[in-house]
């Protein structure tokens, strides 16, 4: 089966630093993949290249077999690639509903009434329905994370890249987010999740990809990767 998204020989250089070094990664439709690694291992840079926010220095990004490296982020969004950010990025002085309507109305030929109906449905699902008139900056940190997820859902994404969805989140909300991701995954959506919360990641995913110093050092089932000596060395420095 053709992968939903695939990176071939992906490199990103920032001046003298090779942040991502010939990365090969493919994600099939319906997978739930965890992408982990120590700080500075190139995870976020990889996500940025796979969603159009960074142009690779070299290599290819194939989305459903079509080369898309270097395309604008809006072009990835139009091809049903959604993402959240490491540090939550909202339209702070716009209301919760307006935040949701931006992706809804960015779709060609979309109708405001239909986008609003869809947005309210997602807000209901995320437990934010009563806050739709509030400015996003007035939400709590956890609610902001949920809103960012909701905004990505408005793209009706086939694949969602979540960058540290559990960072700074209390255990109750973390469980809630895990539950939401599981529901969305059960509906057929593909996920790539970056996080440092190994316990949460292990609860969620079946496949783990580990990066260190810009390169992929392990890729496989959670149980296998967890005991991989190179992974242990990268994390523990042993």
């Amino acid at each position, binding site marked *: 089966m053709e992968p939903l998204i695939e990176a071939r020989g992906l490199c990103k250089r920032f001046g003298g630093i090779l942040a991502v070094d010939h990365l090969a990664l493919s994600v099939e439709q319906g997978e739930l993949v965890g992408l982990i690694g120590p700080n500075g291992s190139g995870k976020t840079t990889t996500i940025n290249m796979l*969603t*159009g*926010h960074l142009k690779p220095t070299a290599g290819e990004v194939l989305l459903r077999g079509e080369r898309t490296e270097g395309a*604008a*982020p*809006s072009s990835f*969004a*139009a091809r049903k690639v*959604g*993402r959240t*950010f490491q540090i939550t*990025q*909202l*339209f*702070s*002085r*716009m209301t919760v509903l*307006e935040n949701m*309507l*931006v*992706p809804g*109305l*960015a*779709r060609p030929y979309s109708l*405001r009434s239909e986008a609003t109906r869809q947005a309210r449905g997602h807000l209901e699902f995320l437990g934010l329905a009563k806050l739709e008139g509030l400015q996003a900056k007035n939400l709590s940190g956890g609610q902001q994370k949920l809103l960012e997820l909701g*905004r*990505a859902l*408005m*793209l009706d994404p086939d694949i969602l890249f979540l960058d540290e969805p559990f960072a700074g989140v209390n255990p109750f909300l973390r469980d809630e987010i895990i539950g939401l991701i599981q529901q969305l995954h059960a509906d057929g959506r593909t996920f790539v999740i970056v996080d440092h919360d190994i316990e949460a990641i292990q609860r969620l995913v079946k496949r783990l990809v580990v990066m260190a110093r810009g390169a992929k050092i392990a890729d496989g089932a959670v149980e296998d990767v967890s005991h991989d000596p190179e992974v242990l060395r990268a994390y523990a420095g042993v």
Partner: protein
Amino acid sequence: MTRSLAGQAALIAVAAVAALIFPQLVNNYWLSVGITALFYAIVAASWALLVGYAGQFSFGQMAFVSMGAYTSGMLARYYDVPIPLGIATGVVLCAATGCVIGYVCLRMRGPYLALFTVAFSEVLRIVLVSEAEVTGGNGGLQIPSLFQGRSDLPYYYLGLALLGGSLALMGWLVRSRWGLFFRAIRENEDAAAAAGVKVVRFRLLAFAIAAMFAGLAGGFFGHYVGILTPDIGSVDQMGLVVAMAVIGGPESLIAATIGAILVEFLLEALRAYEQWRLVLFALVLLLTVRFARNGLLALGADSLLRLVRRQDASAKARTA
């Protein structure tokens, strides 16, 4: 209709009636001030659209005014092009130049963008000064008037119609999905792009549309004044427009418009105080930026809204 909507409709109706009967109440001098205020109001609103809604801090709006005025003026003077067609040509040229400026500035933000647009304005002004054979240089370029006769009245009503039309169009725009995208870009370009907004396209559109309205205002005002000098696009003039919009409220077209009209009238009313009136306005500007980032009118409107809501709540409590 809610009380706030009814209040807004009533305010607009009162403002419209006041604007329509204004010429009957004042002498020629104040009518001329009124026309100048209408011109500044269009420019301030267009700047609010670009800066307040789309978040592109430009100092080049008066350069587009200058471009619109000189394009129309020179076409009418040298080629006998009908003035409305000349103004339309100026508007199109401003839109195209706005697109180019927007494209060149794609990677610039905040102070860098502001500095670039200052430089653009100065380049245009110096070209107008230097090419004196064609532009008249600092001595000015006489251009035909839009209306025959000596009355300012037709200019006033045309200016009023242009302001009303511009506000209606800009208002429609900011309430449309384009307005939503402009605000999303203002808030966070990365998030807007991730949400599917074509950031480059909408940044260019914001520059082009704001430049169009500035060019329109320039064309109208140039043919009213009848003599063009490069100073119309100076940084001083741009500073005045920024002050007008900021004092009114840069994130509201109406507030920026009212700010422009108020400042223009107050500047004239306080003319006896000469340079001290400028010190006064500078102080008002400083206080506004410090204590009312969204303008004095927005602050006043918010307070009024809170008062109305409090009254509504207490009325409901009494009925219950």
